[in-house]
């Protein structure tokens, strides 16, 4: 849920309802086709298509049909997905793509049932633990052949992000966005602030900002997931990538002294947070930065959406960011950060996948192209293309810097709720625990850490 689209769900409630309505219509239509029989489905659509004859070349096929389940319901990303689909149809001999767009939150919540039922051939998803989980359960089709054809277009970091626990490739990474500390250039130059590179300088800056009447750090955790970004970066800086990933997958204990240290360090900056942060949405936090009330904001690149929504291009031009400061540990050198990667995957149980496999693989190859990803980025600029051959010449400075900060990182994490199991990271678990910690950051966290571990231990084996 560490995702702008997910968070926007609450705000765009009515829009989401519309999306759900679309889903129903699609489902009923699909049901009708289902009654007609899976066997005749492909033939039926092909017959309607007329000249959509399938021609197979190696692993991919032109013409024919395929289906895609998408969670991109945000207006921008929805437009972007449609643009990709249209371009694919044009480039692949008129392949008809049946696009089923489902509200982002609904899609995420129903993913287990979706993948076990009668899903589309391809679907949008996240990399990281959430991808490996469904790969392990045999609900995704490995695409090593496609990956071998496109992997020269990707860096090693991306390759690692789409490998299952069995070493097979399961997804095509298409876009990502980094988490960093955002600020307004005009506010900073007005007060003469400089980018802090150490923890002490960061805290000193907070003191200065407070004296200048600013909220030093905008913080908004009503949605529960934004606090996990701060936990991630503090744990990465203090205890390193290996400990972080092991902790999130249960190989380390939450009662560990190293976790206690994270909360101790965290409590040093909580006095500089927005007042009443537990009642603020991330958009309201972004507004504090936008309206020059707050000095800094640790968030994903999607904070720029809010600056764009202000309608003033000048605001967006003032937006800048820096990597979270070093904490003086050996792990500073990792330059690790959260940069969630969105991917396309193939399902396993799609009734049409056998007939459409060639087209679906052609689609996977197509979305691995830089030109395709730029097409999407033009519609949804918060999502940076992942392919090496993406044309970066039209990137604005903010995007260029985001690319740079990620390429400098030696370790990349996917965000707490994509790196850990969803039952642990959700409102029931870590979201609630972190809010409990934040309600009194100076508390002795021993019992809270005990609760975190007890909750982990109570979860059934994955």
């Amino acid at each position: 849920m560490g995702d702008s689209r997910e968070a926007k769900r609450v705000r765009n409630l009515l829009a989401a309802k519309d999306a759900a309505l679309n889903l129903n219509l699609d489902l009923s239509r699909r049901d009708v086709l289902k009654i007609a029989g899976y066997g005749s489905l492909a033939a039926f659509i092909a017959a309607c298509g007329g000249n959509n004859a399938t021609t197979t070349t190696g692993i991919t096929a032109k013409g024919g049909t395929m289906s895609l389940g998408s969670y991109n319901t945000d207006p921008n990303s929805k437009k972007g997905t449609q643009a990709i689909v249209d371009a694919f149809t044009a480039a692949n001999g008129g392949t008809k793509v049946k696009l089923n767009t489902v509200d982002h939150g609904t899609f995420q919540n129903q993913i287990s049932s979706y993948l076990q039922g009668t899903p589309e051939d391809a679907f949008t998803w996240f990399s990281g633990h959430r991808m490996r989980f469904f790969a392990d359960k045999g609900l995704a089709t490995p695409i090593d052949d496609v990956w071998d054809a496109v992997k020269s277009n990707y860096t090693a970091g991306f390759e690692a992000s789409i490998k299952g626990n069995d070493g097979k490739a399961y997804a095509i990474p298409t876009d990502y966005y980094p988490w960093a500390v955002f600020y307004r250039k005009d506010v900073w130059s007005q007060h003469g602030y400089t980018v802090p590179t150490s923890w002490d300088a960061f805290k000193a800056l907070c003191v200065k900002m407070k004296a200048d009447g600013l909220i030093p750090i905008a913080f908004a955790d009503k949605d529960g997931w934004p606090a996990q970004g701060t936990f991630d970066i503090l744990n990465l800086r203090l205890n390193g990538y290996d400990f972080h990933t092991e902790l999130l997958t249960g190989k380390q204990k939450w009662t560990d002294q190293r976790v206690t240290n994270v909360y101790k360090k965290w409590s040093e900056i909580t006095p500089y947070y927005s007042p009443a942060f537990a009642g603020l949405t991330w958009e309201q936090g972004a507004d504090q930065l936008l309206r020059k009330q707050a000095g800094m904001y640790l968030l994903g690149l999607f904070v720029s959406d809010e600056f764009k929504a202000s309608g003033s291009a000048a605001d967006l031009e003032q937006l800048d960011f820096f990597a979270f400061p070093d904490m003086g540990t050996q792990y500073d050198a990792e330059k690790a950060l959260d940069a969630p990667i969105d991917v396309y995957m193939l399902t396993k149980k799609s009734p049409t996948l056998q007939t459409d496999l060639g087209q679906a693989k052609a689609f996977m190859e197509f979305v691995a192209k830089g030109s395709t990803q730029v097409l999407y980025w033009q519609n949804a600029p918060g999502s940076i293309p992942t392919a090496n051959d993406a044309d970066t010449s039209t990137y604005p400075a903010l995007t260029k810097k985001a690319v740079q900060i990620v390429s400098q990182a030696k370790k990349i994490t996917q965000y707490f709720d994509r790196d850990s199991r969803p039952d642990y990271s959700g409102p029931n678990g870590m979201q609630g625990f972190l809010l409990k910690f934040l309600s009194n950051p100076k508390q002795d966290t021993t019992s809270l850490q005990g609760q975190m571990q007890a909750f982990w231990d109570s979860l059934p084996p994955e």
Partner: protein
Amino acid sequence: MANTTARVAPARTQKAPEAGALVNRRKRRYTLLTRHDKILIALMVGIPLTLDVLLVWGPTLASVGLSFTNWQNIGPITGKNFVGFKNYQFMFSGYTLFWPAFTHNLIWLAWLTLIATPLGMFLAVLLDREMRGTRFYQSVFFLPVVLSLVVVGFIWDLQFAPTDGFINNALGTAKSSNLIDWLGNPRINLFSILIATSWRHIGYIMILYLAGLKSVDPSLREAARVDGATEVQTFFGVVFPVMAPINVIIVVITAIEALRAFDIAFITNQGKNGLELLSILIYNNSISEASLVGFGSAIAVILLLISLVPIVAFLSRVMRTLA
């Protein structure tokens, strides 16, 4: 029973003119129902019963069954999934959200019973007095009832927002450093959403009670007035007892509203940080991406047991009146 029928049946048939025909059938159970009646009854009982078993008792029993497993909505349920009472054990001892959620449901019930419902009844009594503008007030108070709770939650979300919200700005606390965090402070946010719930609940109760008041025989009040009773005496001594059937419905509705509370807390912050409710725990565990279906079912079973209390109380009362 069989004996009685056997004894009564011949006694009756002796008097009947076509007794000879009936003697042959004596070995069958005597019945007054024709074949047509039997088919009709079988259909009238059978169809609702089948639907009830399929749609209500089936899922209920399935939930009870699932509550003894750790099934995660993936793959078939095998013997390995059965964990006995582990879910219940963890719920009562290790799960830090269960007792808060339980308490919040109780607070919800107490608030609705002691504050919102009496307020709604009070408004109904006032509006019943045919003062000027009754219709206007009636529609104003009733307006929130036509909104879904999700919309109500959304509206109040905007009112309660810490910096942009109407309430903090009206109180002048929005700019201060210790502004009131209506929805984020776990000590007060439950009461914030209870205010939002009451906004709708009061109108609902008001309209129900008003309808009841209108049906009270005016001659009763006249008689009370003639006897020299005050307004208060008339209400509590005459009108209130006469309204007994409506009162029962109001009590049941209030209890049900408290038990099914979900929407407002969920739309506010997915029911965490002080807004935990049993229904939300069920959702967050079993229906969300978490897919802890077994554990969620265990919570659902507990909620079912709690819900049975008002249902049984209501039904036993209804049965008693019928009998």
